[in-house]
């Protein structure tokens, strides 16, 4: 408008001296008046003088006229425009005719159409974005497909397009134009998109609670299991590694233990629900291992090792009722959403990253040397009043007592190597984007020999919109194959072999097993017992959506997951000392699952609010097919992999199925980005429950108040850039109890023998149809603040989860025919409460240098609130009302009696638990130009099991059996009357008083020691080359990096790693890696 005025004024000041002429001729068709006037000026030589307001009601001119005088022209032209004119010399003065009114004017002023479509960088439409015409004339919201249309009677406008979570853009548009508007995601973490169940929102507008770990956090860690990358990163999420072997299991719990369990003293894992690109991960976090033993230990092999962390865009952990309720039954223990990378529009971009590293076992278990060992044994025998002779101490008499082998170094002291390659190609246009990536990861282990884990992965994502953007398709596929080669036993236990054990090889180079007639368990035999596993995993998801109308869309996702694991463990002749035959064991564990989730979405923007409704359904089916075959009696190693060559074969299989169906709905209403409510409800059915009990109803409500968007707050508290209070309450269910527990089933007895040549059957389960959903009621309140333009972000959450209607396996009297355990709902209640606080501070932000600190702390409390009939139940010895589920009843330890040198203890009592008091992480990130340094510490304050408990239970100090060496901590023993010692006297004799006193230690509260730690979990240093250098390399991006994992641990816990807490298992590894990333 301004521009027009200036032009007009300039025109008015023109002086045109051209003479008057009678033969003027014009032809206009829908030409603006101003243009008409200018045409007249050019031909006539006259100049118009006028005020711009005369154009207020102008109309385009359509006129064809020839041989006309100036006056004639002006008469026919201006009358209909309601204008008068006066000619004075060469100037024509125009004024508005005061009698003229616009009313009779038949045609309205001409309107221009401004069209566009707002999308994010991936080409996904942004519905409800604001398109505001600069100057405040008009604003519109975009439709569900991102499109907008403005009609304005101006030729050009400047449009300001904004959308929460994205950087606001201004664009210049001319009338009639249709422009795509691509918005870039805002760097403010509050405005990052977060995935919620079946949708997205931003952290700012979210009413629920979730924690996010991004690809950047994951990429800084040289790990092969994505769960490893979560350790310490998310408040409320406790991740613990089982051991340091590649492929080992990770325990993950969101907000504590909520279920009581399957047997007294055995707490269920309480795994969260895992969803990878919309597909529930079929094996969950359960071990894939079917074979009886492997070095991976009791927790087995992690199914997550088949994922490539490099393909992951982010991992989100949903915690409260509002966030998890939409996942219903499966969300009681939290939901972990894993989202893989997608392509961005643009020319095809290649990206490659390669890194390589070395790792070694973290351990502070030092073992006795030969001299210390011999002293221990001699002292033990002396205490027992036994002679050092061939019967009592054969290894001291028959073997060299000066020889020393450092078995720890020999068996677990190797350096493990890691190599990782990841390459991707991505690109696309506004309609279609894609990414295709491939990865290779190899890591060896610290035990000698050709052992390790090799993984190859492929990831593909394809996104397509139809031209009218009404139809959308997304296809994601992940495929991996993982080969794990280990031994059948964790060699850590073999490091406890007597340090004076005989030479491992005899003079002729064979594996030695005997010296002077005394045999020993040469660990090299153990190394010949090999375990290998192959895991093939395919996850595919197809998502189709169609925009039926601007408000309505329908979509459906189809997911498929197939994970196939096959294992073999061999005990060849070369690993047998006494047996003359070899044996092998074969396991398969296949999971197949599919899921279909149709949905209808409705969006509208009534008044100042945004309303979205979702209605959907889930059909999920999962199959597991497991078999275990033991083959023995091989007389040669050559045929050990051939089951048919075995003389004895025993087999078992297991083939459970799981089905799940649900209908769900969600309503979200956002009023002016100030008040948001989110309601969800669902009806769930699970095949794990008996007839008539399958279905349960669940729901949740969440609300948020962004008080910082209130005018008084905005005005008065300028430093407060963001403030939100939110709360949620809801009910979620749990069916994680195992399949078919309600069904009365019969199983073959043929593994016990066959009667009369006829296969037999026996009842294996009672008909028990009456149990159903375990129910968790979650309540949460949170305050989120952003200060100083969100440079400091603070979140404090307080939550309380109460899990009732507990599904508990309880002992039946034998008269029912089943003294085993039957599952039943108990009105017992477990409460998890806690605080979760996180702080994100941008300490320094400048162009060259930035420093960001993130700090999180979680203070969880677990408590058994109620358990009616606990005293008379089989759980009476393991649970105490008012205490944590992990709390123990033990003897009270009274120390070592200075007179007798024996452990003393008194009465059983509740004595403590293994729950962390608090845990969290501290991260500092520094960037200077292209240099980035990231240091992440995680910490835990907790009681841990005294590592000596396992030592005393396994093999008390002083006793000679196979692996009878001891950690140096056993040196703190009682020696003579009057000694005030930490540990009792050594004894070699299982019948001695000292031996009997061991339980005073191992069954007492001495099991608890301080297991707190602070660990430098990740250190990452990287340098991205600057533009000048990049030109030389013809690269778009070039980055080199150094990474370290588990670099430093500060802990009072001695004798084992404070995380795994097991001196007999391989500790986690300390890893260093260096790599390069290039985008040509």
């Amino acid at each position, binding site marked *: 408008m301004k521009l027009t005025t200036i032009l007009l004024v300039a025109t008015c000041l023109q002086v045109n001296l051209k003479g008057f002429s009678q033969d003027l001729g014009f032809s206009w068709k829908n030409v603006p008046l101003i243009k008409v006037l200018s045409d007249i000026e050019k031909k006539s030589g006259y100049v118009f003088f006028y005020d711009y307001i005369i154009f207020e009601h102008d109309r385009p001119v359509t006129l064809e006229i020839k041989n006309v005088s100036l006056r004639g022209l002006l008469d026919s032209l201006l009358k209909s425009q309601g204008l008068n004119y006066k000619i004075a010399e060469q100037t024509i003065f125009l004024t508005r005719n005061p009698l003229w009114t616009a009313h009779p004017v038949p045609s309205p002023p001409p309107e221009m159409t401004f069209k566009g479509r707002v999308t994010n960088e991936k080409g996904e439409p942004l519905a409800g974005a604001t398109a505001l015409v600069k100057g405040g004339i008009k604003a519109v919201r975009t439709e569900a497909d991102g499109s907008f249309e403005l009609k304005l009677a101006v030729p050009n406008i400047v449009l300001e397009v904004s959308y929460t979570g994205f950087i606001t853009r201004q664009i210049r548009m001319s009338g009639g134009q249709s422009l795509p508007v691509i918005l870039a995601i805002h760097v403010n973490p509050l405005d990052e998109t977060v995935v919620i169940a079946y949708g997205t929102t931003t952290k700012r507008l979210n009413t629920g609670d979730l924690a996010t770990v991004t690809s950047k956090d994951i990429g800084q860690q040289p790990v092969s299991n994505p769960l490893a990358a979560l350790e310490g990163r998310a408040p409320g999420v406790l991740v613990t590694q089982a051991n340091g072997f590649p492929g080992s299991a990770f325990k993950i719990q969101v907000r504590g233990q909520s279920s009581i369990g399957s047997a007294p003293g055995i707490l269920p894992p309480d795994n969260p629900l895992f969803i990878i690109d919309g597909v529930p991960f079929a094996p969950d976090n359960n071990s894939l291992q079917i074979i009886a033993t492997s070095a991976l230990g009791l927790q087995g092999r992690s199914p997550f090792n088949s994922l490539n962390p490099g393909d992951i865009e982010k991992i989100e952990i949903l915690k409260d009722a509002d966030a998890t309720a939409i996942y219903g039954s499966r969300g009681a223990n939290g939901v972990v959403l894993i989202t893989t990378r997608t392509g961005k529009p643009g020319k095809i971009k290649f990206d490659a990253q390669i890194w390589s590293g070395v790792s070694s076992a973290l351990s502070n278990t030092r073992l006795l040397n030969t001299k210390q060992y011999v002293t221990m044994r001699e002292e033990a025998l002396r205490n027992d009043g036994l002679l050092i002779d061939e019967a009592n101490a054969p290894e001291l008499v028959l073997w060299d007592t000066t020889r020393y082998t450092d078995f720890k170094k020999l068996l677990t002291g190797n350096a493990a190597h890691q190599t990782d390659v990841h390459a991707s190609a991505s690109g696309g246009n506004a309609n279609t984007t894609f990414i295709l990536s491939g990865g290779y990861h190899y890591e060896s282990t610290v035990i000698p020999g050709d052992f390790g884990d090799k993984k190859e992965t492929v990831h593909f994502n394809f996104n397509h919109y139809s031209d009218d953007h009404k139809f959308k398709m997304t296809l994601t596929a992940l495929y991996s194959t993982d080969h794990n080669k280990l031994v059948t036993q964790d060699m850590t236990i073999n490091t406890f072999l007597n340090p004076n054990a005989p030479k491992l090889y005899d003079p002729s180079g064979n594996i030695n097993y005997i010296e002077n007639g005394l045999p020993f368990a040469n660990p090299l035999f153990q190394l010949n017992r090999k375990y290998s596993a192959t895991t093939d995993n395919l996850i595919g998801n197809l998502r189709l959506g169609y925009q039926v109308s601007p408000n309505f869309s329908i979509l459906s996702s189809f997911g498929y997951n197939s994970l196939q694991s096959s294992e073999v463990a061999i005990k060849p002749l070369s690993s047998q000392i006494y047996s003359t035959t070899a044996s092998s064991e074969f396991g398969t564990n296949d999971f197949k699952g599919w899921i*279909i989730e149709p949905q209808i979405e409705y969006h509208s923007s009534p008044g100042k609010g945004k309303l979205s409704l979702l209605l959907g359904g889930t059909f999920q089916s999962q199959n597991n097919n497991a078999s275990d075959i033991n083959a023995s009696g091989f007389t040669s190693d050559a045929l050990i992999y051939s089951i048919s060559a075995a003389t004895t074969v025993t087999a078992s299989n297991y083939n459970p199925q799981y*089905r799940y169906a649900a209908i769900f709905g969600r309503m979200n209403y956002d009023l002016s980005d100030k008040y948001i409510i989110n309601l969800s409800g669902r009806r769930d059915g699970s095949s794990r429950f008996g007839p008539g009990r399958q279905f349960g109803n669940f729901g949740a409500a969440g609300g948020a108040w962004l008080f910082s968007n209130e005018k008084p707050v905005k005005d008065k508290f300028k430093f407060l850039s963001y403030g939100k209070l939110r709360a949620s309450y809801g009910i979620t269910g749990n069916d994680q109890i195992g399949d*078919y527990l309600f069904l*009365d089933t019969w199983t073959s007895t043929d593994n016990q023998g*066959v009667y009369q040549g006829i296969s037999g059957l026996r009842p294996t389960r009672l*008909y028990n149809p009456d149990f159903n959903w375990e129910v968790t009621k979650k309540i949460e309140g949170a305050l989120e603040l952003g200060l100083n333009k969100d440079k400091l972000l603070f979140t404090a959450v307080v939550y309380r989860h109460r899990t009732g209607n507990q599904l508990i396996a309880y002992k039946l009297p034998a008269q*029912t*025919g089943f*003294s085993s355990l039957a599952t039943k709902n108990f009105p017992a209640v477990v409460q998890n409460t806690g605080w979760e606080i996180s702080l994100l501070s941008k300490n320094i932000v400048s162009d060259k240098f930035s420093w960001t600190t993130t700090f999180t702390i979680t203070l969880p409390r677990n408590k058994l609130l109620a358990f009616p009939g606990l005293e008379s139940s089989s759980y009476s010895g393991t649970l105490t009302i008012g205490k944590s589920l992990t709390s123990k009843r033990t003897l009270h330890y009274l120390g070592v009696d200075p007179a007798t040198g024996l452990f003393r203890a008194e009465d059983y009592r509740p004595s403590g638990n293994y729950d962390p008091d608090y845990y969290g992480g501290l991260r500092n990130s520094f960037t200077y130009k292209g240099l980035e340094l990231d240091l992440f510490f995680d910490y835990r304050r907790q009681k841990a099991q005294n590592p000596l408990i396992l030592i005393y239970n396994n093999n008390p100090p002083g006793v000679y059996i196979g692996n009878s060496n001891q950690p140096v901590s056993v040196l703190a023993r009682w020696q003579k009357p009057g000694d005030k010692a930490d540990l009792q006297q050594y004894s070699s004799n299982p019948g001695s008083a000292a031996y009997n006193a061991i339980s005073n230690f191992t069954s007492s509260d001495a099991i608890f020691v301080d297991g707190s730690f602070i660990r430098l979990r990740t250190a990452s240093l990287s340098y991205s080359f600057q533009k000048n250098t990049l030109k030389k390399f013809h690269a778009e991006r070039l980055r080199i990096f150094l990474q370290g994992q588990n670099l430093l641990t500060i802990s009072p816990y001695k004798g084992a790693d404070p995380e795994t807490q097991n001196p007999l298992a391989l500790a986690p590894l300390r890893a260093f890696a260096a790599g390069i990333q290039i985008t040509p």
Partner: protein
Amino acid sequence: MISMRSICIFFLLACIIQLSACKKFVELPAPQEQLSSATVFADDKVATSAITGLYTQIMANNNSFLNGAISVYAGLSSDELTGTTLPPFIPAFATNSLTNDNPVVSSLWTNAYTYIYQTNAILDGLRRSDKVSKPVKDQLQGEALFVRALCYFYLVNLFGNVPLPLTTDYEVNATLPRVATDSIYNRIIPDLVSAENILSADYVVTSDFPADRVRPNKWAAAILLSRVYLYQRKWGSAESEAAEVIDAGIYSLDTVPNVFTKASKEAIWQLMPVSSTSNTSEGNCFIPATPATLPTYSLTAQLLKAFEPSDRRRSGWLGSWSSGGDTNYYPYKYKVREGAPPYAEYNLVFRLAEAYLIRSEARAWQNDLRRAQDDLDSIRSRAGLGKDSSTDQSSLLSAIAHENQVEFFAEWGHRWLDLKRTNRANAVLGSLSWKNWQPTDTLYPIPKEELSSNHNLVQNPGY
């Protein structure tokens, strides 16, 4: 795009239709490697597996209820066996000093009820099923009723009053209190009567085992029934049931060395071993591993004294072990300690000799002394002994009791049960110095964990 739209709408409708079928969707059949009750009783063959599975279970572990345990532990409790070098909870039987946490007692109880559950499940499944043919249904029902009666018979004789679950409903069964012995007999008797009616007189055999007597027939039910009548002091019924067995025509008293062989002519019901390493449990636990090994269980001096000179059973059914002038005797009815299939010996549960001795005792009580003596002498003559010389009822009854002692020693607890049913336990066992006898010792304790998992159970006196 119209086609796309219609496809999508069609799809959505399909999904909505699916949603209404939600309930069906989450109802799953049993996993493939397991069978639901309905499938088990859907045809003759699988239903038969339910009963052979029961026998497999009974025979799967040596020294368990119905497979050797009663011979050993009831033998220790009475005056026929002593144990050497055993964990302390086993000699506790011999010294009658059991405690309520004795693991053997607990396993007897648990095994019995596991088998009872299976018989209940079979009876329940057959009742519901209309797919099993009548002859098979009758046979299987008869076998299940018979095995259930046998389990209850030993339960009441070892523990006294016991819970009497007759269904598969664990909610009902879990809280059942103990029921008077008489009520249990009142259940056992009609069950055995109907078992006897519906079981075939011929043995159910397979082509692999054409001559074996390893599935109960009519006469197995009859012999147990006659024993139950005897215990109930229903002399007439006991006599007639025993007579039916004797007159069946398919059994005859075999020679002493042949009685415990697989092909024994007097076997009425044998349990076939299923182990890959041993034959009978008794053979496996009574016979020492090597000639030099001290027998785990030795016969008492009381039993040895009971044998008359020239009793063929003494030489035929006793084994001996000597070391430095010390001689121990052990039960040697079964001759095979270890061995893989094919088996030479089966676990002999009921044999014809018992029918003779039952009929003899029943007749004696009915003052039919002559015919009672005939029956007794049948057994004595097989043992190479002369005719009984009793002249009055009470001396004849003593003679019959004595015959039972030497005929059935270390076999299915006959001695222990006889002493108790004839009220001689206090007199006989109370007089032995190495017994720590108290009158309450006639019953074993109810296992502790049962009392804690079912508060309706009450412990036996003395524990």
